[in-house]
């Protein structure tokens, strides 16, 4: 039997987003795999150079669709670093709450969504329905379900009211009460064990050489998390743990995402308790129009821990009212391009969507 060319994606229900992997297969063993990104390329880095510093806030959440707030946070922190702005303390706490809420939302979607490629269709129903509760918080807080544009340069757009704080407490309690159900349904399920246990194993050296971050790295026993190694916001002031595993297989990657949810809940609870009461949540940077704001010359690289790993913005300013260059480090760049080419050959066809789902290959942030 000879080798067969096989196109996987972009138009395929098992595909994770609009992405494509082209393979040579023999039987059902992958002999050679090539990633083909670019279906979502919009030229963000060029468009950002053409807009004002402030109007970019409306554009950048669209870089990563499942987790939009990390973009605004990264960009805002980068500009603040160049312009040496001090952000009010309450705004920093609110940013942390928003980032952790979107982490929970994305993890719920990913943990439920693993049911899609393996044929366990109750899990996506639960995951998306519970994620919607967090989207309701965002709607009350920011006015939008998906693209919030809430974190702006110098703080956040508006204050968090006590009513919304109460809503967050209640939603966190609800999600915490649901976690044992998820454990029983998903992680004690025979389908998941037989499909994911021992598949797509990465060793520690392979993961570090590839440059993969996030759960892909932590599943190999390395306790690397940007929140701990290079703390931003107030992550050095709250207590939380970083769950790790040593197997490095697909199952442990999904299970780590699940185990991060209680930690995020813990961070949000601490933040809600320790947040100072104040009305000042942003700084007016210049007098007059905020659109024509000028940022001094300089460059800075800011990275944060997204659900998929290290997510970074490299911002360059030449002292005008528009950015000179903004480069984005998509968190799934290494595993989505190099990882597919290097580690998929030798596996079976049905493992390919599992790689894409457990490694969280996010097509819009690779393409930008």
């Amino acid at each position, binding site marked *: 039997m000879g080798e067969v*060319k096989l*196109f996987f994606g*972009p*138009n*395929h*229900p098992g595909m994770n*987003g*609009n992405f494509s992997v*082209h393979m040579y297969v023999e039987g059902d063993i992958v002999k050679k795999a*090539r990633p*083909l990104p*670019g*279906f*979502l*390329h*919009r*030229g963000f880095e*060029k*468009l950002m150079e*053409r807009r004002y510093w402030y109007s970019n806030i*409306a*554009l950048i959440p*669209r870089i990563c*669709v*499942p987790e939009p707030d990390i973009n605004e946070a990264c960009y805002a922190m980068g500009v603040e670093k160049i312009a040496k702005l001090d952000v009010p303390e309450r705004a920093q706490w609110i940013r942390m709450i928003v980032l952790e809420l979107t982490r929970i939302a994305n993890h719920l*979607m990913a943990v439920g969504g693993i049911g899609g490629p393996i044929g366990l269709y109750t899990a*996506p*129903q*639960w995951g*998306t*329905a519970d*994620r*919607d509760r967090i*989207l309701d918080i965002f709607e009350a807080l920011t006015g939008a*379900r*998906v*693209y919030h544009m809430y974190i702006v340069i110098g703080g956040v757009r508006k204050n968090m009211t006590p009513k919304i704080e109460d809503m967050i407490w209640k939603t966190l309690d609800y999600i915490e009460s649901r976690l044992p159900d998820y454990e029983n349904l998903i992680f004690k399920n025979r389908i998941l064990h037989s499909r994911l246990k021992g598949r797509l194993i990465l060793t520690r050296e392979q993961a570090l050489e590839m440059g993969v971050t996030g759960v892909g790295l932590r599943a190999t026993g390395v306790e690397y998390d940007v929140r701990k190694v290079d703390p931003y916001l107030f992550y050095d002031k709250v207590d939380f743990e970083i769950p790790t595993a040593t197997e490095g297989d697909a199952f442990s990657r999904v299970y780590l995402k699940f185990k991060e949810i209680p930690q995020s809940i813990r961070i949000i609870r601490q933040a809600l308790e320790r947040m100072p009461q104040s009305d000042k949540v942003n700084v007016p940077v210049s007098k007059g129009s905020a659109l024509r704001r000028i940022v001094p010359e300089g460059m800075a690289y800011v990275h944060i821990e997204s659900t998929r790993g290290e997510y970074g913005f490299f911002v360059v300013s030449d002292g005008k009212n528009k950015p000179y260059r903004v480069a984005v480090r998509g968190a799934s760049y290494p595993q989505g391009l190099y990882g597919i080419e290097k580690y998929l050959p030798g596996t079976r066809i049905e493992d390919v969507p599992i790689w894409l789902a457990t490694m969280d290959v996010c097509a*819009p942030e690779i393409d930008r």
Partner: protein
Amino acid sequence: MKERTIWEQIADSFRSRSIWMLHYCTGCGAMELPPTMTARFDMERFGITPMATPRQADIMLITGYLNTKTLRRVIYTYEQMADPKYVVGFGSCTINGGIYFDSYSTINRLDYYIPVDVYIAGCMPRPEAILEAFNYLMEKIRKGEADGWKRYKENYDWYKQNQIRSLGEVYVHDEFHE
């Protein structure tokens, strides 16, 4: 518009009760589809369900901006779908380019390349808006007004000429990049 026979009217009425949507997320609007499909908004109660292959699908949902590279695949897919077929443009990007109006790789209006039956405005539209649009599309099908697939056949040369103007070449010769 040509008058429909009684049998066509009955067929249209049945068609509108069970429309299958092609499961192809072309852009970021696909993010609001999971809530629409699953338990909370549950689009299946209107008889709409995702379908994996273009040959069995009735609706093509263009979720958001279209890159030129994706537009080639969308045209492939659209031409593979069996008649009658309907296109729903989702989000501002399909209407006038939206926030990417000056991007060098995204198109600015969808109905220049393939006929569109219903547009949903907004970035991004809520799940309720998607359901409302589907209900409106069903109404249009029942009345026989959703005739985009007929227009595509009648004005095939015009659509083809527009596609070639923007894409250079519609067909992909070197799909494998080798």
